């Protein structure tokens, strides 16, 4: 989450104070991404250093110090909005690594490992769904932010479901040869195609 660009977006509406920026940031993201005060001021200092925002320039940093966006900041913000985030290279996903390791460890009940993660994710989704369900009708910001979380968690569960199915099929096809090494499982899955 780019706090830097979120603050620039708020400043693009007009000059604001530090405290005001923090409150508006949380309101806009449906309080799903809470910020601490330190994060806000550190980011504002960097924006100022980079010439993307300017302050009143008087007194100490604090809640009452005012900030406004510069023309350079406006350009930076517009560029950021239209630039897709880098999703091209797969992230080092800890969950994926855990399942791959579980497959290599003899005697590991891999479906049970998968289920432990699935249960945790479903529980998280239940929490988010409750937040959405209890939110005021028409709170679009909150609904959008919670939906994003729900879709993200859902995609992880789908991956687990698919992994579960693949492992089950792979083992049914060649129970002895498939274990414990992942490369062997891969070969077996490949042969089935």
């Amino acid at each position, binding site marked *: 989450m780019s706090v830097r660009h979120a603050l620039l977006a708020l400043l693009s509406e007009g000059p604001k104070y530090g405290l005001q920026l923090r409150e508006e940031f949380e309101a806009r993201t449906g*309080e*799903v991404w*809470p*910020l*601490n005060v330190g994060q806000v001021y550190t980011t504002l200092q960097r924006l100022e250093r980079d010439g993307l925002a300017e302050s009143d320039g008087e007194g100490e940093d604090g809640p009452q110090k005012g900030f406004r966006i510069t023309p350079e900041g406006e350009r930076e913000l517009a560029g950021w909005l239209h630039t897709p985030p880098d999703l091209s290279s797969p992230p080092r996903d800890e969950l994926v690594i855990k399942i791959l390791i579980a497959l290599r460890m003899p005697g590991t009940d891999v*479906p049970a490992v998968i*289920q432990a993660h*699935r*249960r945790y*994710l*479903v*529980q*998280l*989704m*239940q*929490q*988010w*769904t*409750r*937040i959405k*369900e*209890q939110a005021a009708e028409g709170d679009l910001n909150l609904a959008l932010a919670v*939906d994003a979380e*729900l*879709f993200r*968690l*859902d995609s992880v*569960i*789908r991956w687990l*479901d698919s992994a*579960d*199915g693949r492992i089950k099929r792979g083992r049914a096809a060649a129970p002895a040869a498939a274990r414990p090494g992942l490369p062997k499982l891969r070969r077996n899955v490949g042969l089935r195609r």
Partner: protein
Amino acid sequence: MSMLELHSVSKTYGEGPAQVRALHEVSLSVEAGAMVAVMGPSGSGKSTLLTIAGSLEEPTGGEVLVDGVSLGRMSRGAKAQLRRRSIGYVFQDFNLLAGLTAAENVALPLELDGVPARKARAAGLRVLEDLGLADRAAHFPDQLSGGERQRVSIARAVVGERRLLLADEPSGALDSVNAEEVMRLLHAACQRGVAAVVVTHDAQLASWADRVLFLRDGRVTDQTAPIAGPESLLTPGAGQ
């Protein structure tokens, strides 16, 4: 008070080497006002569990109690009456009768149960109004969108004094916004005291439930803990 109880329910189809065990000693209890989701992959026994809970199919072992009464001890007639009067079913493909309007579809279970037509229609219209479908009451199913059809089928499932809702992939054919609307309606029915069981492979649907059971190869293998409050998600640094 448990609206639905399954005690060690098993179901096998066929005999000998061709025998398939669809459910193996499944136990579950759903209180009035609660929504329980049953999650599992295709072929895990979800739909069988639902049809047995709804008395549409007999188990080969174990016992099912609806509102404290054992289905095994009921006559066919008593079970039929229970299905008409107390249980509402919601299916993925809506199962609305094409030749009846939305209002007639909703009133049908009451009419089948002997409620005079005029009274049944009035009750049906009330439910359609509650679900924001008053202006669709005179439309036939093919004049409704997918989301509207499923809302009509939910109206049909809750009309009268139904206390148990059984839903099989209730939003499977809908886009995510309509799916959410369907789950909101089911959830609202639970808040009025109805017990619901939703079977699905979709985690987004299941996340509306108070409790999620995981079904695998006909067995309940796991379930979620009680839902934690939102604080843990909305505190700086949590969940990152």
